[in-house]
């Protein structure tokens, strides 16, 4: 008779359009307050909404990428409530006829995806609040999951995968600090096997850390109440990062009656099969599928594959490196270990990174052909990162090339054996530790450039 948490998530994602959903105001982040506004998004009298085609396209893409069914006719509805950052006193959203229903991410089902407009921003300043309507009217998709999630970890995993999909498909930039992705969590608990408990909604969880903390706290809070014989109030709560607790929103007592009705300023949204199919063709290979392909085609481990698909640019970079190097495992190692290290350390973006897949691939080829050794390769790589020069140039300039021609090494080994007859005699008589001395002599003879593996093997062979 243990407790089970039942969690559903509503994720609001900003669509990566240039203009707002119902007007042609720019959506770029960070503009001075109330400078990206017009009569429509200001809620001025007489202004009317006109739907952004690209917003619809991105919403359809999000729905396709999560396996949803797209409804060819969907309806915009007014959700009526008063709030200072909601200029019209209603939000244009979708209610009983959403754009899409019935998808999934992993084993979490998606109930629906619908389009709506964002509200503006209020910032509190002591006794007053300041309202900026730049964000009002930004296109959103709201992605509602079924209550299939059972823990904070599962919630994190779900949002991680959803965010990744939205970024892969270029639907949303996934920037949570800028508010591009926001989560509300509906949390209830029940004894295993019992019917659903009363749920509380926690709004505006804008980082993975807050998402996990809030859910953990809320589960514990509800269990504590129920175990002491109390009941859960169905309510909306906010997470307070400072205390790590959720608390009731002190708004009106009465439950919201949103009085949804179809917005008479907009006709139904009609998307025909041909358009949906065209958009489907533009949906890139999704991360999960891509990772599986890497395991299959490149014999990478699951962990390696997952690490390489975390972002689409990274995965593209990796595959281009495979192409230019002809060595998938080599490419995987270098990208996962060295490239990511440099990007993290120096806070660089892959887009501007000096080591192109072409150059990295050629470095790997140099290693694979024996032209340079492992240690030299690292030096070449670091130089490439800083200078952007070609690997061959760097090897030449720094004299890092190694000798991998067996004939040349053989020649040098013979000279070493001739010159060190005494030690050779002693080695052959049984003093095995003299091998190291002779290898050292061979390396000196070749000015350190002999391919170490090859030098070892050839010397061993000639010494008998």
């Amino acid at each position: 008779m243990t407790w089970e948490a039942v969690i559903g998530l509503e994720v609001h994602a900003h669509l990566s359009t240039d203009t707002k959903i119902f007007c042609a105001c720019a959506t770029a982040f960070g503009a001075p307050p109330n400078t990206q506004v017009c009569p429509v998004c200001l809620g001025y009298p007489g202004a009317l909404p006109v739907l952004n085609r690209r917003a619809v396209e991105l919403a359809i893409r999000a729905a396709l990428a999560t396996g949803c069914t797209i409804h060819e006719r969907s309806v915009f509805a007014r959700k009526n409530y008063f709030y200072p950052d909601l200029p019209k006193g209603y939000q244009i959203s979708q209610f009983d006829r959403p754009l899409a229903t019935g998808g999934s991410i992993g084993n979490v089902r998606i109930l629906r995806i619908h389009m709506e407009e964002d509200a503006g921003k209020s910032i509190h300043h002591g006794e007053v609040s300041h309202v900026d309507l730049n964000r009002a009217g930004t296109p959103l998709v709201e992605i509602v999951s079924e209550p299939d999630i059972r823990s904070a970890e599962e919630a994190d995993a779900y949002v991680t995968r959803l965010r990744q999909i939205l970024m892969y498909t270029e639907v949303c930039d996934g920037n949570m600090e800028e508010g591009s992705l926001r989560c509300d969590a509906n949390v209830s608990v029940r004894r295993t096997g019992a019917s659903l408990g009363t749920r509380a909604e926690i709004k505006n969880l804008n980082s993975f850390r807050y998402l996990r903390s809030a859910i953990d706290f809320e589960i514990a809070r509800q269990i504590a109440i129920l175990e002491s014989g109390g009941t859960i109030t169905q309510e909306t709560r906010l997470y307070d990062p400072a205390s790590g607790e959720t608390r009731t929103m002190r708004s009106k007592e009465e439950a919201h009656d949103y009085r949804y009705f179809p917005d008479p300023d907009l006709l139904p949204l009609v998307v025909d099969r041909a358009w949906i199919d065209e958009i489907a063709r533009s949906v890139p290979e999704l991360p999960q599928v891509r990772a599986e392909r890497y395991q299959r085609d490149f014999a990478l481990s699951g962990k390696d594959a997952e690490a390489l698909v975390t972002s689409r640019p990274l995965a593209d970079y990796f595959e281009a490196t495979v192409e230019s190097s002809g060595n998938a495992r080599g490419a995987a190692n270098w990208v996962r270990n060295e490239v990511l290290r440099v990007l993290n350390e120096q806070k660089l973006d892959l887009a501007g990174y000096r080591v192109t897949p072409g150059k990295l691939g050629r470095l790997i080829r140099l290693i694979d052909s024996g032209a340079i050794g492992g240690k030299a390769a690292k030096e070449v790589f670091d130089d490439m990162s800083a200078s952007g020069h070609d690997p061959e140039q760097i090897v030449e300039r720094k004299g890092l090339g190694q000798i991998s021609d067996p004939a040349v090494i053989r020649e040098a080994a013979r000279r070493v054996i001739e010159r060190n007859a005494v030690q050779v005699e002693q080695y052959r008589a049984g003093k095995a530790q003299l091998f190291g001395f002779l290898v050292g002599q061979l390396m000196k003879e070749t000015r350190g450039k002999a391919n170490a593996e090859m030098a070892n093997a050839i010397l061993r062979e000639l010494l008998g």
Partner: protein
Amino acid sequence: MSELLNLPWHEAKTAATARELVDASLCAIDERNPALNAFLHVARDAAGGMPVAVKDNIVTTGMPTTCASRILGSFVSPFDATAVARLRQSGCSIVGKTNLDEFAMGSSTEHSAFGTARNPWDPTRVPGGSSGGSAVAVAARMVPAALGSETGGSVRQPAALCGVVGLKPTYGRISRNGLVAFGSSVDQIGILTKTVRECAELLGVIAGPDPLDSTSSFAPVDDYAADLDAGIRGLRFGVVREAVSQLEGEVRANFDDALAVLRGAGAVIEEVSVPTIGYAIAVYYIVANAEASANLSRFDGIRYGHRSARAKTIREVYFESRGEGFGDEVKRRIMLGTFALSSGYYDAYYGRAQAVRARLRADFDAAFARFDYLLTPTTPEAAFAIGAKTDDPLAMYLSDIFTAPANLVGIPAIAVPSGFWRGKLPLSLQIMGPRFSERALFRAASAFERETGYWRELPPVCT
């Protein structure tokens, strides 16, 4: 000078310069408006051109828009309504904003926050509403044309009570961009003029699709004045049985006379039933008010308009500003509309009203399958006394009984003067047509006007 404005526009514009015509208009306004209160704002700096008045729920740059409400405060719109922009582009001059029932909610203009307008035929009586100011401006020959707006008859009904032509076009014919929304699925800008020709010409200027209004129609803009002289011989007119059966007295007699005129011109006239037409007012008052309850939520004292000086909390900003800023009729309609959408009542009220509306549309379609036009009087009575109906909202609503159906089903309708009640108050004939039949509508209205010539009679204030 103001006799210029007694001429039909195509004559006036050859008789004087654009500047003289605007000056004549401003002069007439100065002379006649104080007693009639048709104008809330006069644009003394108006450029030369055809003088047009604009109902004050249609936004204009460079001058206030009040919707005859305190809640707009001193709001000045940063954009022109599309219809206004098109008028300006064609050389018209906006000489002022006209009085109306607050937010277009009313049938008499008595619900204006700035005092009622008065009927130029008898200033103790209402001019009708909600576009009362526009109707007076045209009837008293202060302007040759005015824009009004229709939600339940608000152009046709005041046109009828003031003895001028009033057109409600097909829903979607004229862009609603810049018309302060009341009942979004029924609202249309309408045109008031003294003659049918002037109305047809102005429709051609402002009609047409607008990328800023998702509900505006791409149906081709016609040459609306092309058939004004074509006559109505052989055309089929259906008299709506359910409307006519209630008529009596002088209104009945006047309507019968109008039918005789049409017959004399060759029209074929029969009765036709539109069975659900009697429910139109009930449907209208749920649908329009429900939509209005949401449309008026944006008036909150935060971004523009009146903010209560007593408001200390955000709650007070909302409740006090709206409480102080809205008049009683507006509040009544917001309450009704909110109720009709609220949880538990939506299906029984809003849902049902929309279903009856669909049925009404089907009844009209059936009627138009057999007739080119449908006929009723425009109003059940002539202009009533100021104050006569203000205590009885329902009685006021019933003034729209013949006009509201056309709004609900989206068809065009025109009101033309049809004579006088007791020789002194105008009466009016309403002609309705199928969607986008404005050209044919003008044809019929013009034929009737040609036979009757009532537009040549001037109200006392002009003589």
